[in-house]
């Protein structure tokens, strides 16, 4: 577990350094994820140890959002003032985004599969 955790943190660190150095709008951990993905793709395998540690972290991914979510208590005033605009925006936008993405991807995948058969 320790080597795998060290590996993950090192990739994050390298990602942060790249993001800062090139003043990229993308956060370090996302660059770290891209780099690790590229490494795995080049090497062609994932060690059991890394897989186990990653599963452990991702199994309770939800937990990691709890501290930021609790920050809702800082914004009760604004939420009370603008609750309708906020709630409608989140509801409509989330549903529409899921629908648009799912329909478009399904359409494009079917076309791709039809091409593969042709």
């Amino acid at each position, binding site marked *: 577990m320790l080597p795998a*955790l060290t590996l*993950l*943190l090192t990739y994050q660190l390298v990602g942060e350094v790249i993001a800062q150095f090139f003043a990229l*709008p*993308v*956060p*370090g*951990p*996302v660059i*770290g*994820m891209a780099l*690790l*993905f590229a490494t*795995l793709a080049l090497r062609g395998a*994932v060690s059991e140890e890394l*897989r186990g540690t*990653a599963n452990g972290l*991702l199994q*309770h*991914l*939800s*937990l*990691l*959002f*709890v*501290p*930021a*979510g*609790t*920050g809702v*208590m*800082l*914004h009760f005033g*604004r939420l009370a003032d*603008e609750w*309708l*605009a*906020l709630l*409608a*925006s*989140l509801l*409509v*936008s*989330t*549903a*529409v*985004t*899921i*629908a*648009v*993405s*799912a*329909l*478009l*991807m*399904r359409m*494009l*995948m079917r*076309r*791709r599969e039809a091409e593969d058969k042709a």
Partner: protein
Amino acid sequence: MTPRLGEIWVYLSASPLLGLSLTLLAYQAAFWLHKRCNGHPAANPVLLSVLALVAILWATGTSYATYFEGAQFVHFLLGPATVALAIPLYAQFARLKRLALPLLATLVAGSITAALSAVAVAAALGGSRVTQLSLAPKSVTTPIAMGIAERVGGLPSLTAVLVIMTGILGAIGARYVYRLLAVKDEAVRGFALGLASHGIGTARAFQESEQAGAFAALAMGLNGLATALLVPLLLPLLAG
């Protein structure tokens, strides 16, 4: 007895241990309840944990800053967890290569839809400009969204909360959208949910299947990139 308890409270409330343990306890309880409800999406563990924590902090008069001194250790793990998403992603590598074009087209369309629809609905209902700007990056994972909000003139801490709410709404509501549209493919279900609802949607997708989870993780990562690039460009178009 009581003054002694008071002293202990003063001691504990000054140490990060309390915020950290409370976060874990609240989550464990929420997760237990989630299981008891047969994993029903409405019994979302993040939602339940946040409700419990806000109630406890409010009842004990503890500030968010004090709480966060302990909770930051959990918050910090978002970084390595994001990096770790490369592993389930890699497991789907063969399939991803074949689907590169459909995925990219969906990503761009979904990313623009997420940002513009959120800003447009809030604007139409009289939401303030700061609220609109804070809403624009609401579909991407917390650290990215906060960075974007700061860049475009929103409130990063408000964005963090809106991001979590978006995640919870997506995790709860996606199944109804999918039922309505008869979306059955695991890859599509995962990708659309990860795109719209980042890590919380991804956590939900992993409960459905490993494949849905991997596509959700991919969408979440890609949408982080896409939104970071697109939102600063798109917002001037909407400037009211």
